[in-house]
């Protein structure tokens, strides 16, 4: 395992005696050169998990390991410098994640600059190489972010993360702000980089079809917990947890005949607030198969096959 968590927790204090349980005990592992897809509704804690994993949030509890070495719970400045060589992140919104007052050269080269092992001209050369790698022109270096389209900005964000030559990259909804035709460009680029650099990726998204397409394994999150995890095709075509089933049933596909044949069973209600949560399964209030037991007893994670695990009381 390149990266691994054990019962990772991240709570936010949101007021007097109010704790928001954003990530509440997640144990996941990601193998070298693997893409793990992380899906779930907004508010399920996907991004917080990604950020906590690479130290952008101090964690509240649990453990995280990189190459089987424990990652500190709270990063010091030195930790940030040390870990950012290997752990990087690509952000969701290509508009707000690039500093509008910096040129592309400064944005992409900043990581190298901070690490202080390159001269200015070396940095410039590296930036040019990476801009070409992600399909931009080296002439774009002196431009500012507003001069680029959403897809191009996302490429700048990718170049900024990749120039450090990280081993592990958290991609936080890298395509959800992009047009369909551009999404495919970015996905193919990530796939090429994964293969040429031997990257390991945590791919966070809410587009189930895309996550299934991109990732080797897929984990489904609900209110801070992972409810199901397994090989992508297995989770997608043979979902076990009631939530995964409903999520996949709600996912429309670009095929009118299939859509007409679809049984309409949309999921009831909305995701509840993760503030001061009591015991029991988080999905109990929306679950069509919930029993009295589900609202009092925390479900345990069971393996239904070698790689496929479900966290649900129905599987005892």
């Amino acid at each position, binding site marked *: 395992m390149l990266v691994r968590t054990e019962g990772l927790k991240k709570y936010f204090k949101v007021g007097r005696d109010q704790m928001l349980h954003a990530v509440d005990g997640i144990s996941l592992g990601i193998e070298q050169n693997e893409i793990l897809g992380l899906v779930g*509704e*907004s508010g399920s804690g996907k991004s917080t998990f990604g950020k906590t994993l690479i130290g952008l949030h101090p964690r509240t509890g649990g453990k995280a390991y990189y190459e089987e070495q424990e990652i500190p719970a709270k990063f010091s400045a030195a930790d940030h410098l040390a870990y950012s060589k290997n752990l990087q992140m690509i952000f969701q919104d290509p508009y707000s994640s690039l500093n509008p007052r910096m040129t592309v050269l400064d944005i992409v080269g900043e990581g190298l600059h901070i690490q202080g092992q390159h001269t200015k001209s070396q940095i410039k050369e590296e930036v040019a190489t990476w801009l070409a790698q992600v399909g931009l022109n080296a002439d774009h270096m002196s431009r500012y972010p507003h001069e680029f*389209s*959403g*897809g191009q900005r996302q490429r700048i964000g990718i170049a900024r993360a990749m120039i450090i030559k990280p081993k592990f990259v958290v991609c936080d909804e890298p395509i959800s702000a992009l*047009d*369909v*035709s*551009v*999404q*495919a*460009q970015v*996905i*193919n680029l990530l*796939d090429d980089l994964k293969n040429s650099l031997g990257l390991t990726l945590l791919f966070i998204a*809410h*587009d*189930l*079809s*895309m996550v*299934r*397409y991109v990732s080797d394994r897929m984990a489904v999150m609900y209110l801070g917990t992972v409810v199901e995890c397994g090989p992508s*095709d297995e989770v*997608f*075509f043979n979902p076990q947890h009631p939530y995964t089933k*409903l*999520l996949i*049933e*709600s*996912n*429309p*596909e*670009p*095929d*009118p*005949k*299939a*859509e007409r044949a*679809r049984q*309409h069973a*949309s*999921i009831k209600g*909305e995701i509840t607030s993760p503030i001061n949560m009591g015991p029991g399964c988080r999905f109990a209030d929306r679950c069509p198969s919930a029993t009295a037991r589900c609202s009092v007893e925390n479900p345990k994670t069971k393996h239904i096959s070698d790689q496929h695990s479900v966290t649900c009381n129905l599987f005892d």
Partner: protein
Amino acid sequence: MSEMDDTFKDNVLEVENLNVEFSTYGGVVQAVRGVNFSVGRGETLAIVGESGCGKSVTVQSIMGLLPTPPGKITAGEARLRGNNILNLPAKEANKFRGVEIGMIFQDPMTSLNPTMTIGDQISETLMVHRHLSYSDASAKAVALLEKTRIPEAKKRAAQYPFEFSGGMLQRAMIAQSLACNPSVLIADEPTTALDVTIQAQILELMSELQKTEDMSIILITHDLAVVAKMADRVAVMYAGQIVEMGTVDEIFYESAHPYTMGLKEAMPSNRKDRAKKLTPIEGSPPDLFSPPAGCGYFARCPHAMALCETKQSEEFILTSSSSHFSKCWLQHPEAPKTDGLFQVGDDDAG
């Protein structure tokens, strides 16, 4: 005369040769360049395309919501039951907008007034257009919220937008747009900001209300999966023009324009045998400051011919039913045959 009456019955809304320009510091952007379509009664027409293709501008022009200046409708007509509704003074426009045509927007959080309760915003519509008293309008607002299945509608009506989740806000906006029983509902990317689970709820709600209220829907989206789920007919827009139009099955199973094909191939399939790579559409849409003389898709099209660069294609009608057309020279009888694309004379192949 009787023929005209029939046309009104079939087509609630007809748009003809719509042209919209925006004056900017950089020059004039020709955002919409000659768009024609009609919407039948009870029908759902989806307009699909990438950002900047002019789909939102088209419906904003119909609704009289185009910011003028910089926007300007330079030509065309939009007829609601036969009467032109473009370029009307606000007083005239207010007789139909929000009454006969309702509209919902992509981002409910910024489309509703944060300083008014949800109930008051819906009542306002009824008081302005239907001249109801405040108490009658408030009671009707609660009934409308119930219709869009907002639980505890009475309590919710007294709340402000910030107290609502995204999905609930979208329901409230639908309730507001239904207040005056419109015959057409324009939905501009109604579920783009929502999760799949909430998207499914909202789309199902829209389909149900369409039946009970006997509405036509114009659905603007970039998501082909949403189109497949909702649409009866589809218009594919690119660079300010409709490049292909047909029934939902024709567009998906007999795609005749290379751009439609490109959009389809850029999406991951849900089938088990996944192709190894997605096929992106390389390049980006043309600059509409000076739109190309020929086909707007020329620079990105894998099948482009010399003719495409200089001359715009006519709209070739493809099937015996006249519902399906493609604005592409490949449909010319003398054009070379192309693998994968539906072409004239392919009727048996489909």
